[in-house]
């Protein structure tokens, strides 16, 4: 039916394997940025400084309502006009990290808001500092309810990495394109890319749930 060539498939597999590694690094790097920056954005939106709160809220809204691919182009092509010259890898991870930090900040906000008011009052009654209150009491309790959302965005960031191919990051999609145009064959590389994405995405939902249960247990909250 299809003109599927097994020998070609095996020939390109190692190259796609390396590209998978790059994809995972790009997703992981972007996610690491998003996790930290997202928390900073969430906390900034809760700060008592109204100007800061307002600016951050608008920025988050802006990032969420513009396409990721535009943001990637922006960082990579417009950055140099302001003297910020970054490699495709760095620009890509920054853009994707920034994009997802906006979404993660909302997840964190939801988690933080789910912590009962009495916990804040207990912290106050012990004269705890704001940072101890957040990092020792509130965030550990905000984490379990946020984990499902955080996991979804991890899968999301992974599936969005092909967009980095537009600025030449050698991830899976970029490799598949290159293989295709070198050999004038697209069926095998694209199919393999699809299978690889599926093989990584599918089990992650289950893994995230298991991880969530483990965290709850660790925190004595189950």
């Amino acid at each position: 039916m299809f003109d599927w060539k097994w020998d070609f498939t095996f020939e390109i597999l190692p190259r796609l394997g390396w590209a998978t590694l790059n994809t995972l690094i790009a997703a992981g790097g972007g996610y690491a940025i998003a996790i930290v920056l997202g928390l900073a954005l969430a906390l900034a939106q809760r700060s008592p400084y109204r100007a800061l709160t307002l600016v951050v809220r608008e920025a988050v809204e802006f990032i969420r309502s513009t396409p990721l691919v535009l943001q990637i182009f922006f960082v990579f092509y417009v950055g140099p006009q302001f003297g910020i010259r970054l490699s495709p890898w760095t620009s890509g991870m920054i853009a994707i990290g920034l994009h997802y930090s906006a979404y993660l900040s909302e997840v964190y906000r939801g988690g933080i808001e789910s912590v009962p008011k009495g916990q804040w009052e207990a912290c106050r009654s012990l004269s705890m500092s704001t940072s101890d209150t957040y990092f020792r009491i509130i965030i550990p309790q905000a984490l379990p309810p946020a984990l499902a959302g955080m996991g979804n965005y991890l899968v999301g960031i992974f599936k969005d990495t092909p967009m980095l191919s537009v600025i030449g990051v050698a991830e899976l999609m970029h490799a598949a394109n290159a293989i295709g145009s070198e050999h004038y064959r697209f069926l095998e590389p694209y199919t393999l890319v699809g299978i690889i994405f599926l093989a990584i995405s599918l089990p992650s939902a289950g893994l995230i749930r298991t991880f969530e249960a483990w965290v709850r247990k660790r925190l004595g909250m189950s």
Partner: protein
Amino acid sequence: MEDYSNYPLQLDATDRPMVRFQNVTKRYGALTVLDNLNLDVAEGEMISIIGPSGSGKTTVLRMLMLERIQGGVIYVDGTPLTHEAKGGKLVEASERYLRKAREPIGMCFQHFNLFPHFTALQNCMEGPVQVLGLSKKEARERSEELLEMVGMIDKKDQHPSRLSGGQQQRVAIARALAMRPKVMLLDEVTSALDPEVIGEVTEVIKKLVKEHNLTIMMVTHQMGFAADISDRVCFFYGGRIEEQGPPKELFGNPQKERTQQFLSAVKSAD
């Protein structure tokens, strides 16, 4: 703007209650909850605050611990709590100042508010280690002593979710005491408990009154308990102290009509 020049920067040694509310007003938006409240609580005194729901009892305690006021000044141990002296005048306290000034105050809540991700012992050690800067060893010794006192030493490694309401409240009392407060605020600490475990918490409070030189302000609906252990009972009505006095007098021979009505309503509900 209120003129604070009439308020002393520091209370005189001869006239120094542990807690003083001076002309304190608290509003939520347009709603005035506390109306020009004046109340002194002496060192070592145990006062009970009673009154109908919504009369401002909880608010009185919250002013000392959790919220800002819109008028007047609160002093604790002679020093302003809600205000700080700047250039010889009282100005509204900064967050930093407030946090420090509130250190000698401890509070227990109706719903315990224990940290669910910490064990009973960790709950008690948190404040001493993070806020007072005690070593882990010192904090543990202090906490274990207090858990022993409230009869919870056997459960020290349990998380709150494994404890009954009465047990959680006893841990919460130990947690507050671990900060070595001078003033203890108790807001309906038995109201969320099953009737059969109320006794274990009231026993602990009795012990506190007897064995520690604490100043205690307790909001309660348990009139018998209040009569038993208070030096003074304040009856709140509409954000004001309608009547106050030693429990014998207030319960035995209330002067104001509203007090009489409230007490007979409570009695018939029991």
